[in-house]
């Protein structure tokens, strides 16, 4: 591992390189490298502007507002927050998951599959395929979806349409593209009409075919240079996520399972309402983002990865046939109990796209999604925990309310926080193995971004300002003087500002 690169000795005498902000990552990320006079990396850190203010934003509001309100926390994964909050407030009205009406449960799952499908499709086709198809150090003008659309038009169009299809599933189930009120405390506020169901069925076979094609594509890309793909940014870690009671892959509801780097079970079938007994968060002075860890292993050994790689590694099987066949192939390629390749996040992401497409078809053919028994009500409680497998990993929402139904306490652990230590480790691995001792160039620094992007971190603020996300590289000498500055635009334009 590369923990020795978290904090360097003699920091004041080192050159500082800042990659700020990291592009094709939602929100604002920054990489700082401290180099000695021989350009050897002595310290590497990924700093992230955390989801600050979430809890304050939620506290003081009546609980029934939460499924709509929390969508505004993040413009990238609003449905994930919507469903995690809904699961938590189910408990506030006395409804445990087993007692949610069957139709409501299936509609929520359909909504979630649509969300995961569109999120993964966006990440692979739009944000990562340029690197994977053209190379990490390729000409910068090629590293965009437009270049993919030009040179691989079929793949580019499939990405756009897969994304669109997932959005349409969301729109049909929740009534709107955004701000929908699909899930409410104890159930759902609408079911699908036959016309809506038939509309979604029209294209689902095409989506499954394209999803299969995307799995074949990533397998080909990954295996075309196996030693490199299996090594780049790769770290050995623990993995955490939800699984079904029989160990199958689960995205909406299940027990917590954690395995170590050898595939040995650390814990299994844990009731997520008791997450506080198993997971703690550590604070470090140099970043706003916390570092979660498994209490049983401690801060040093207990960090873990979440997301598609963790889920596919952790599960015993996938309950849709095409995705299961893809999982078996994926696991076989490494020859180990767990696949640790960070770039394998892409492969597993596309296996999940296929699983989602297959699962959507199953649900669309299930008459329960057009059912009328949609809401259950029980006895009021004062605390609720909702956990789902969001596209980027396990997402925790935890609320307490008072006698007036006002939220008095909120705690969120988002997927990107869980991957914080892992992303830092991957950055250090790349810095140590690929950058150290070489002259720093833009393509080399893109390697750092590739490592981070594999995790699909969401640092969303959902606020945008046109043109606010260039990539800036600054080289600062030991006296703190700016000696070189590189601004990269995604259209290939590079501006150099020699101070």
């Amino acid at each position, binding site marked *: 591992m590369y923990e020795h690169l978290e904090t360097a000795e003699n920091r004041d005498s080192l050159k500082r390189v800042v990659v700020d902000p990291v592009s094709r990552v939602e929100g604002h990320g920054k990489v700082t490298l401290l180099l000695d006079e021989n350009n050897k990396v002595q310290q590497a850190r990924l700093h992230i502007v955390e989801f600050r*203010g979430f809890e304050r934003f939620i506290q003081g509001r009546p609980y029934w507002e939460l499924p709509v309100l929390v969508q505004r926390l993040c413009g990238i994964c609003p449905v994930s927050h919507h469903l995690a909050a809904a699961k938590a407030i189910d408990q506030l009205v006395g409804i445990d998951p087993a007692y949610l009406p069957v139709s409501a449960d299936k509609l929520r799952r359909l909504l979630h599959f649509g969300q995961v499908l569109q999120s993964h499709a966006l990440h692979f086709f739009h944000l990562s395929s340029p690197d994977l198809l053209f190379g990490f150090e390729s000409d910068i003008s090629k590293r965009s979806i437009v270049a993919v659309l*030009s040179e691989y038009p079929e793949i580019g169009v499939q990405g*756009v349409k897969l994304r669109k299809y997932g959005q349409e599933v969301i729109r049909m189930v929740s009534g709107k593209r955004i701000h929908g009120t699909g899930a409410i405390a104890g159930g759902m506020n609408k079911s699908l009409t036959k016309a809506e169901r038939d509309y979604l069925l029209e294209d689902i076979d095409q989506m499954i075919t394209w999803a299969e094609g995307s799995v074949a594509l990533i397998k080909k890309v990954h295996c075309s240079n196996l030693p490199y793909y299996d090594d780049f940014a790769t770290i050995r870690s623990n993995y955490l996520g939800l699984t079904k009671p029989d160990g199958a892959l689960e995205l909406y509801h299940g027990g917590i399972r954690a395995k170590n780097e050898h595939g040995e079970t650390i814990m299994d079938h844990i009731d997520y309402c008791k997450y506080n007994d198993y997971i703690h968060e550590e604070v470090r002075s140099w970043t706003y983002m916390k570092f979660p860890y498994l209490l049983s292993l401690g801060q040093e050994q207990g960090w873990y990865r979440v997301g598609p790689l963790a889920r596919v590694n952790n599960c015993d099987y996938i309950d849709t046939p095409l995705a299961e066949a893809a999982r078996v192939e994926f696991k076989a390629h490494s020859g180990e109990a767990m696949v640790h390749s960070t770039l394998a996040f892409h492969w597993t992401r596309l296996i999940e796209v296929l699983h989602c497409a297959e699962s959507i078809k199953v649900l669309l053919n299930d008459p329960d999604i057009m059912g009328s028994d949609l809401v259950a009500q029980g006895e009021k409680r004062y605390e609720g925990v909702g956990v789902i497998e969001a596209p980027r990993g396990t997402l925790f929402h935890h609320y307490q309310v008072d006698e007036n139904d006002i939220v008095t306490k909120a705690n969120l652990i988002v997927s990107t926080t869980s991957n914080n230590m892992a992303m830092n480790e991957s950055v250090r691995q790349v810095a140590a193995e690929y950058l150290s001792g070489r002259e720093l160039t833009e393509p080399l620094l893109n390697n750092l971004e590739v490592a981070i992007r594999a995790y699909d971190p969401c640092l969303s603020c959902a606020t945008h300002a*046109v*043109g606010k*996300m260039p990539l800036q590289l600054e080289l600062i000498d030991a006296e703190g003087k700016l000696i070189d500055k590189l601004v990269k635009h995604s259209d290939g334009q590079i501006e150099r500002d020699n101070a």
Partner: protein
Amino acid sequence: MPKPVLLFGYGNLSRGDDALGPLLLEYAESHCGLDEVEVLTDFQLQIEHALDLESRRLVLFVDASVACVDAFDFTVLEPARDKSYTTHAMSPAAVLDVYQSIKKQTPPPCFLLSIKAEQFELGDGLSVNAETNLVEACSFAGRLLSNPDLGFWLKQVNAV
């Protein structure tokens, strides 16, 4: 068939002045005749929004902008590969470029109404200045929507 005019406001209602785009849509829905106009909103623009441009005669994007000099700005959009390709939030010009790449044809006439914004903190309401700017922009948008004609809109570009 989709309606011939698309009014697409984007932003986050809970992020201070970022709400300007969606709020202008609320104004249009309550004050303007929308027989020919489809109203769409999202948090931010993405690749799939290129497909929303299909079969339109006119498209009006509405967004908050810190770059505006006056209360609002009204410009013609052209397809462009700009910096926003590398983020989850694309610019309207980049969306037009994706449309061109997918459809192999020029996108419909598209315009951007930018409303001057100042603050974007989670949980904030509109700033005082943004409230004033929104009123002016709504009045302007109302004139556009009651005259959904390319020639008229182009004249307004020059007038602002």
